[in-house]
């Protein structure tokens, strides 16, 4: 507290600037303003901000490529782009969006910021490794962008051999090196989160009191650590074959290109779950908060996350049903792909169960979360079509597949990312954003997304193949709808960039807990101080303390506020 000497010296008692100083630590944002204090920081919150800036840049690079692709596809003829430019653009879109936006999106921004806060820790377990991880991600991204500026890559994001190794005359090696580098950033993040959750939980924060977002980050980290090295090897083999002429996959010398596909999808199928498990974690937090109910079936939500992470490692073969694999292998992969839908369905049922008779509010993060549930359900159900071998053979390499994975990766994951961004924005920045604009953007995003990708299901089912810049005229109606939707979607993605930037400069100061939410991250100031908490957090109960244990939902009453602190 301020010294009394100062007060007595001043006749009014208010002239002393120290009098109202409570000696609270400054927020992490005010703790150093130099460029150095940002670029060499080991504060998990600042590293989260660094990641947020880089992935936003990559999101708009990838989005610009998609815009050109959709522009070209508005008519059946080639009018804007030549064939090879088109190939380079969809490759750029895929590579940038998958490895430099989606994979790091939720884990490295929201995850980095929130995991230590949610478990009551001061930082992640290995703060320097955390910073190195950002530099690896940035370095990899710069290599990939350098390849783009040098002339681009035309292999598609999957780098299938032998095209990528023997035939393509584009900048494959440089791009592969970029993705290889960024892979180490994923591994570093995975090691960090696993170590943090194991060793730095606050007293009383037992495993089954962890918020579901932390569980989602933990299971995602397991996949980061165990799947990414396989991608690293696969890309290394492609790089060695192109650069040093070491023919591992060359069919002319007895190599097996199908082996490449097995290795690639051993990483890239779990990668889909790396993109969607964090989204599930975010949405679990949002739905429980805005329906004022405990998460329905918390333990099953945890088991479902773990089950998805484990089974997700054994379904990669469903990407290769038409590659000539043994029918018995195809049968097993098909069966496992159906099985992995079970824990996903459990999660959808439990989110719905959480809403049941809850006091549901439609604040902007909740609109994103509800959008997620709908789009994830549609994307998941069409995944069952693709897990079924006869249907998959029919729609292989068509827009049906494109629509399916965009429903999961864009519809679901990006919606959840925006939902989480809006939910934790007051905590991260200490500012509130204009809620009306945010709701409008959320609704626009949902409709723009469906307008873009639902027509692609139909075009694909009718037989329109992916990866061509020209197509038969009978598919034009679906492509015009899709391109129109893409314009709406682009507007919806640009809006948060505008109003969130506005809120940084002019937004009202946010309270410590603007949503009356129950997590530990709301038990500190907004934005939090460098050391996260003022005292030492101790946890005395389970998460989602929105109503007493076992109490039936109350309806026809005003919304219950949160019951306050757990600590």
């Amino acid at each position, binding site marked *: 507290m301020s010294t009394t000497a100062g007060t007595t010296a001043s006749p009014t008692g208010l002239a002393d600037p120290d009098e109202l100083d409570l000696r609270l630590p400054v927020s992490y944002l005010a703790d150093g303003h130099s460029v150095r204090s940002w670029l060499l920081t080991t504060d998990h919150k600042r590293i989260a901000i660094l990641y947020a800036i880089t992935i936003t840049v990559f999101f708009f690079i990838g989005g610009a490529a998609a815009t050109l692709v959709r522009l070209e596809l508005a008519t059946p003829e080639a009018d804007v782009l030549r064939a090879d430019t088109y190939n380079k653009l969809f490759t750029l879109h895929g590579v940038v969006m998958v490895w430099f936006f989606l994979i790091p999106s939720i884990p490295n921004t929201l995850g980095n910021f929130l995991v230590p806060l949610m478990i009551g820790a001061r930082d992640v377990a290995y*703060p320097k490794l955390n910073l190195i991880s950002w530099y690896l991600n940035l370095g990899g991204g710069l290599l990939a962008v350098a390849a783009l500026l040098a002339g681009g890559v035309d292999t598609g994001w999957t780098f299938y051999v032998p095209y990528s190794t023997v035939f393509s005359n584009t900048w494959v090696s440089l791009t592969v090196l970029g993705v290889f580098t960024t892979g180490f950033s994923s591994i570093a993040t995975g090691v960090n989160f696993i170590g943090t959750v194991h060793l730095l939980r606050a007293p009383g924060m037992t495993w089954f009191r962890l918020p579901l977002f932390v569980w989602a980050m933990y299971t995602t980290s397991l996949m980061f650590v165990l799947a990414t090295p396989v991608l690293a090897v696969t890309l290394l*083999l492609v790089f060695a074959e192109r650069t040093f002429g070491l023919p591992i996959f060359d069919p002319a010398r007895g190599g097996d290109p199908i082996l490449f596909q097995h290795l690639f999808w051993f990483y890239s199928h779990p990668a889909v779950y790396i993109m969607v498990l964090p989204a599930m974690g975010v949405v679990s937090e949002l739905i429980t908060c805005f329906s004022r109910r405990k998460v329905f079936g918390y333990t099953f939500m945890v088991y479902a996350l773990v089950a998805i992470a484990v089974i997700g490692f054994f379904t990669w073969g469903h990407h290769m049903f038409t590659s000539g694999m043994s029918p018995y292998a195809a049968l097993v992969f098909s069966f496992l792909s159906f099985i992995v839908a079970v824990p996903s369905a459990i999660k959808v049922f439990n989110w719905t169960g959480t809403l049941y008779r809850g006091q549901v509010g439609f604040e902007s993060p909740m609109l994103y979360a509800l959008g997620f549930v709908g789009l994830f359900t549609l994307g998941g159900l069409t995944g069952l079509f693709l897990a079924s071998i006869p249907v998959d053979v029919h729609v292989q390499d068509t827009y049906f597949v494109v629509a399916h994975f965009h429903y999961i990766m864009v519809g679901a994951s990006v919606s959840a990312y925006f939902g989480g961004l809006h939910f934790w924005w007051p905590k991260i920045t200490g500012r509130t954003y204009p809620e009306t604009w945010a709701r409008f953007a959320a609704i626009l995003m949902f409709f723009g997304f469906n307008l873009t990708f639902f027509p692609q299901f139909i075009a694909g089912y009718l037989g329109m193949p992916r990866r061509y810049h020209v197509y038969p005229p009978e598919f034009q109606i679906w492509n015009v709808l899709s391109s129109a939707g893409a314009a709406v979607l682009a507007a919806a993605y640009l809006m948060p960039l505008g109003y969130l930037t506005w809120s940084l400069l002019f937004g009202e100061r946010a309270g410590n807990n603007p949503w009356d939410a129950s997590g530990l991250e709301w038990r500190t100031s907004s934005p939090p101080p460098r050391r996260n908490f003022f005292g030492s957090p101790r946890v005395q109960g389970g998460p989602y303390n929105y109503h007493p244990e076992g109490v039936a939902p109350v309806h026809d009453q005003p919304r219950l506020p949160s019951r306050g602190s757990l600590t």
Partner: protein
Amino acid sequence: MSRVEIEARLREPWSELETDPGTAFARQRDGATLGIWIFLASEVLFFGALFLTYTAARLAHPEAFAAAGRETNIVYGTLNTAILLTSSLTMAVASQAAETGLFRRLTLRCLAATAALGLAFLVVKGFEYREDIEKHLVPGAHFALDRGPAQIFFAFYWLVTVVHAIHLSIGIVLVVRLTVKGWRDPDILAENPQVEVTALYWHLVDLVWVFLYPMLYLPGRSG
């Protein structure tokens, strides 16, 4: 160690745990060990994918792999296996000696021996590479063996030995770093988790070689 010494060695975020310094130091140690084990799990998948690639190619072309395997120099390969296994012994002794905190000179000597054995491995590997290049065992237009799949064997040989040598070089740098630190300040290695972390990494690199030796040097040589 005294309380002051322990506090001097605590790093963030372990220095901010609300426990006594001894407990915090033990947690920091657990953190270092857990972190390296998770990383090693990742490395196992990395090399596992390479071994899988090798297995698939060898199953498809057993004769070409046997013929190509006979071209590798088993003398160099066996010598290097012996060198690397011995280095794991010295590394293990260094790690255990550091943990007790009593045998400071032994720790230092064993670390230096480990780094020297690692360098010896690289030197032998260098001689072997020179011979391989002279025998035209590099895949490409001048490849000595006529069979196509034999090139896949040697593609694998080059790739995996170079990747292993890079891992080993990183290990040597880490061991030399500890040696220099320990030489400057004899107390610093006692109970220092960095020794165990380096040792675990070193043993993994050694273990990978234990797999590589039969895969690269023994095909075609039995019976």
